[in-house]
């Protein structure tokens, strides 16, 4: 799926944030964040509302420009690259609200991702369906997320959960090395969340995953490492058990809105 470049040793981070800062006027939403993610890692980014998760996510993805600091991906400084160039290097994101091509077929949605990765997106010498390798790869990705039966339906006909599945298929089809999920289970039913978690667990171990997520149950099931943001800064970073036990993290969540009581349940030792 990904191109067979020279393998990066497990100790070299695939993604590195160096004192990454993003301010809106006088408000500093992300404040000198240092973070490194090694290849194959499942890294979760959590924090109470207003902690700067979404801003950090958008700055890493390239939707927002950094005010200061660097984003380094696979040893390359990508801080000044637009989103599309980051994607071409293997940093692919999903959207919190599924962002699809609603008037196109489900298969076309995925094929758009595949044909760019296959470098045939500008060919017009043959009908699209004659590009068999592209079509087959698109169908394979739909099969992976369980949407094979709906390939000829328009994306607009899909349910909320199915749209999220399609998002995942599109991300996988774009040839990623790092997949960034932006609150993937927001608004999903319990069953849909369950299916999503199983899907992510089945993804190849070579894939690095960065996930911003509210549902801490999902976070602790998926992540090998968790970074907690609070007021734009890194409050703690470590393995799930260490984060659960961290006093500062508990205080940060308790100090914020009551809806975060959830965290206490998740944090209790079983």
């Amino acid at each position, binding site marked *: 799926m990904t191109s067979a470049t020279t393998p990066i040793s497990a100790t070299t981070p695939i993604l590195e944030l160096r004192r990454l800062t993003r301010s809106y006027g006088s408000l500093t939403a992300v404040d000198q964040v240092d973070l490194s993610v090694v290849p194959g890692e499942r890294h979760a980014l959590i924090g109470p509302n207003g902690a700067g998760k979404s801003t950090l996510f958008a700055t890493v*993805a390239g939707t927002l420009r950094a005010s200061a600091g660097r984003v380094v991906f696979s040893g390359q400084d990508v801080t000044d690259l*637009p*989103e*599309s*160039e980051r*994607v*071409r290097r293997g940093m*692919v*994101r999903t*959207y919190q609200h599924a*962002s*699809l*091509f*609603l*008037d*196109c*077929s489900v*298969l*076309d949605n995925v*094929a*758009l*991702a595949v*044909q*760019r*990765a296959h470098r*045939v*997106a*500008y*060919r*017009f*010498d*043959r*009908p*699209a*369906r*004659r*590009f*068999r390798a*592209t*079509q*087959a790869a698109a*169908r*394979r990705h*739909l*099969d992976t997320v369980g949407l*094979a*039966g*709906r*390939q*000829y*339906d*328009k994306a607009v*006909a899909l349910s909320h959960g199915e749209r999220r599945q399609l998002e995942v298929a*599109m991300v996988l089809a*774009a040839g990623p090395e790092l997949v960034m999920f932006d609150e993937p289970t927001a608004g999903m039913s319990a069953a849909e969340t369950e299916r999503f978690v199983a899907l992510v667990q089945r993804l190849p171990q070579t894939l690095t995953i960065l996930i911003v997520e509210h549902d801490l149950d999902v976070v602790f099931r998926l992540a090998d490492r968790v970074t907690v943001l609070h007021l734009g800064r890194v409050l703690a970073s470590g393995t799930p058990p260490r984060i659960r036990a961290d006093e500062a993290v508990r205080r940060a969540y308790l100090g914020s809105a009551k809806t975060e009581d959830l965290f206490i349940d998740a944090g209790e030792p079983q």
Partner: protein
Amino acid sequence: MTAGQARSGTERHEAPGPASDTAPGGGDGGRRDLADRPVSHAPLLVAAGAAALLVAAPLVLGPYPVTTATRILAFAVLVLSVDLLTGVTGLPTLGQAAYFGVGAYTAALVGIHVTADAAAQVIAACVAGLIAAAVTGWIAVRARGIVFFMLTLAIGESVHQVADTWSALGASNGLSGMPPIRLFGSPPLLAAGFVYWWVLAVAIAVFAAVTLVARSPYGRTLRGIRDNEPRMRALGYRTAAARYGVFCLAGAVAGVGGALWAAQARFVSPGDLGFEVAALALLSVVIGGAGSLWGPCLGAALVLIVRDNLSASLGGHGPLLLGLVFIAVVFLMPRGVAGLVGARRHPRTRTEIPS
């Protein structure tokens, strides 16, 4: 509710498809834009039938209707270029008449000074339209939405102004004295029917080419831009380059249309590339159904017949009639003529699949 949902119920039970591109359950229930769905042969038969009728037309029609039909075909090629931008890529434009005009003037100049060979004129006009679009489009595609629309209007008006004042092009008098076209060393084609057949052949070739583009991976890229350009960037697309590409392509197509227009009229004037032409081309796309390619061709026929043939009998109120048609289309059939066909096919598909 839709046929799509009705179908999905049956499809879900199929084995998740192997890579076969001829997927089972072939009906293509009127859904637009599915570049990859199983092909039905009905549209091909309809197209062949329409082409046969068009080829036979000069055998039964008098010279005047044949001339009208020739003009419609040339105009339809311009409309195809507008549909490629507006319907397929989602970029409404008022600038295509400029490239149409560049093509027409180029063909006329080639005809007067170089050769009467029609194929050479078409090729020259195609290249000229491509170059003109490549130069001006570099600015235009940087904008989107209403700004892009206004830039295309500015391009159209500028080119019109140049044609209207440049003495080498005859300024406001236009360029006359173009000799009748010849084909591959034939004697000059004086009969309206022969010119018609040439124009028809080129128009069909352009239609086939544009259809191929729309169904190709590049066409899919363009529809992706139309539907959700930010998402395309998030898939790694350089969307400005893709929009620039289609802008150049549409310029080349409009240029060919201009050459066909000149081949029939043997006279080109600034009026052939004015705002009115640009607006009527866009109107044809709306009436016919943006993005369907064949619908806008029907729209082109309707618009040109009303303007050139019915307007006189309406006491010069052709534009008023077009305005009323436009309003009626927007309210009654927002997807144009092509949308009507799609709507008609939906119920049929539903009954084809027993649930």
